[in-house]
């Protein structure tokens, strides 16, 4: 009991230093103050979480809660929309003032099926969703990590060119173990000694792309904090790449096994082609599962972290003291989950890369 109490005190002291509690304390005070004074709508954990893991036209930093209302502080991004009637429009998202203003007949829908998206107001008052290729938070975060990747790996490549046949130095020694791992533990055993080299660029790219974006997503402030690899569009593109490469590199053996699976009784293939159907659907489910797995894992991680943070505010709304009491525990859990997520970030990158490599291996293998 004594040990437990000491441990609790230690945790509280530690959290006091880190400033997490300072943040939660301030926020909860303001939160309770605003609810007490104006009786505004309370804290909605679901909305809070989905706002964070979803996409946005701003890169949100924080929201100032004053007596005049909420003032979000955010980096405005570029809105690029193409309307069938009025053509291409490019403007800064600050013009829309977080949904409070209409610019050039465009506004952010506050309800309905297009809630949170930029819509065009038609002359008759109805709204239509244009083709939207805005630089949203996720796109911006994506571009940041892409720039980071290019910088790191082009620097490393330059170092390799500059001193060939030397021991790795600086950034090389950071990058090299991972590349060696991808080559020797993913590509070589999965694809085979003869053909693995063709797939190495893609496997390296996808591994580091996923890992970088996962890690960037764990950084709570700009330029991180976006849920890029937890977005289905992002994982879908990567899964499509894997699917396309698998399909295009499929050899005769691969396609024959697809139609005429060996070691299966003939009545499973004729007259009802059950096995071929299963095999062909497997061709599509494999990348589909890749897409879902990465998306679900990363999104779930973000949801769990945000959920623990939400606990502070939920309890704080009931009672300020309760909010204080819950915060250290909540933050302790968040720290634990963060460490787990650091691991998950790497593991998911590994799993996606490994499975892609296995599919390439299956598509290019000769007779067993």
């Amino acid at each position: 009991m004594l040990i437990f109490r000491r441990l609790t005190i230690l945790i509280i002291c530690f959290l006091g230093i880190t400033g997490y509690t300072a943040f939660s304390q301030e926020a909860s005070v303001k939160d309770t103050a605003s609810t007490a004074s104006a009786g505004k709508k309370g804290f909605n954990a679901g909305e809070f979480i989905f706002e964070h893991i979803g996409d946005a036209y701003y890169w949100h930093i924080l929201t100032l809660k004053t007596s005049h209302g909420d003032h979000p502080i955010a980096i405005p991004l570029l809105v690029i929309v193409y309307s069938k009637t009025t053509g291409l429009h490019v403007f800064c998202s600050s013009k829309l003032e977080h949904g409070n203003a209409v610019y050039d007949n465009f506004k952010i829908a506050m309800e309905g099926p297009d809630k949170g998206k930029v819509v065009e107001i038609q002359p008759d008052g109805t709204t239509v969703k244009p083709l939207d290729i805005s630089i949203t938070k996720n796109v911006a975060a994506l571009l940041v990590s892409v720039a980071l990747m290019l910088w790191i790996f082009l620097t490393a490549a330059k170092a390799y060119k500059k001193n060939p046949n030397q021991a790795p130095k600086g950034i090389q020694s950071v990058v090299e173990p991972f590349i060696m791992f991808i080559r020797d533990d993913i590509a070589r055993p999965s694809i085979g000694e003869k053909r693995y080299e063709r797939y190495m660029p893609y496997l390296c790219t996808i591994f580091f792309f996923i890992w970088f974006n996962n890690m960037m997503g764990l950084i709570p402030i700009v330029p991180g904090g976006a849920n890029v690899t937890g977005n289905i569009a992002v994982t879908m593109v990567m899964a499509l790449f894997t699917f396309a490469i698998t399909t295009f590199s499929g050899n005769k053996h691969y396609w024959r096994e697809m139609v005429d699976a060996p070691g299966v009784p003939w009545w499973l293939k004729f007259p009802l082609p059950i096995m071929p159907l299963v095999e062909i659907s497997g061709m599509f489910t494999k990348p589909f599962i890749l897409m879902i797995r990465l998306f679900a894992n990363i999104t779930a991680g973000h949801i769990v972290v945000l959920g623990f943070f939400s606990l502070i505010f939920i309890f704080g709304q009931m009672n300020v003291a309760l909010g204080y009491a819950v915060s250290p525990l909540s933050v302790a859990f968040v720290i634990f989950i963060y460490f787990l997520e650091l691991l998950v970030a790497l593991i998911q990158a590994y799993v996606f890369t490994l499975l892609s490599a296995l599919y390439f291996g299956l598509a290019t293998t000769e007779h067993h």
Partner: protein
Amino acid sequence: MELITPGIGLLFWMLLAFSVVLLILKKFAWKPILNALRDRENSIEQALRSADKAREQMAKMQADNEKILAEARLERDKLIKEAREMKDQIISDARQKAIEEGNKMIDAARQAIQHERAAAIEQIREMVTNLSVDIAQKLLQKQLEDEKGQKELIDKVLSQTKLN
């Protein structure tokens, strides 16, 4: 539902960004890095192999050296032995020759002495003969100085000579 509906905008940008990253990194990062890694591995392997070879060669050379040394030692011993034999041979030959030469010289000397002696004896004989004749002449002259003496001698010789 929004969570699992891919947004067109993000889909577009992701496709673009990912393709560009893939192409750029493939050409300018992965190819050079992977080639460099392979080259380095090859060079390390080669270096190890050549080190092994060098070590082997060294061992072989050492063995060769020892062999050569042993051979040289053997050769030296043989040479020394031969030289010694030759020396002995020469000495014995020389001795033999000296003895022979000595013998020959002694023989020649002996022959010369013999010769000289024979000549000397001949001379002496001649001299003795002459002397004898002289003496006899003188003796006869002396004895035959008177008649009596001559008759006695003739008698004596006639008595000694048997007439048959």
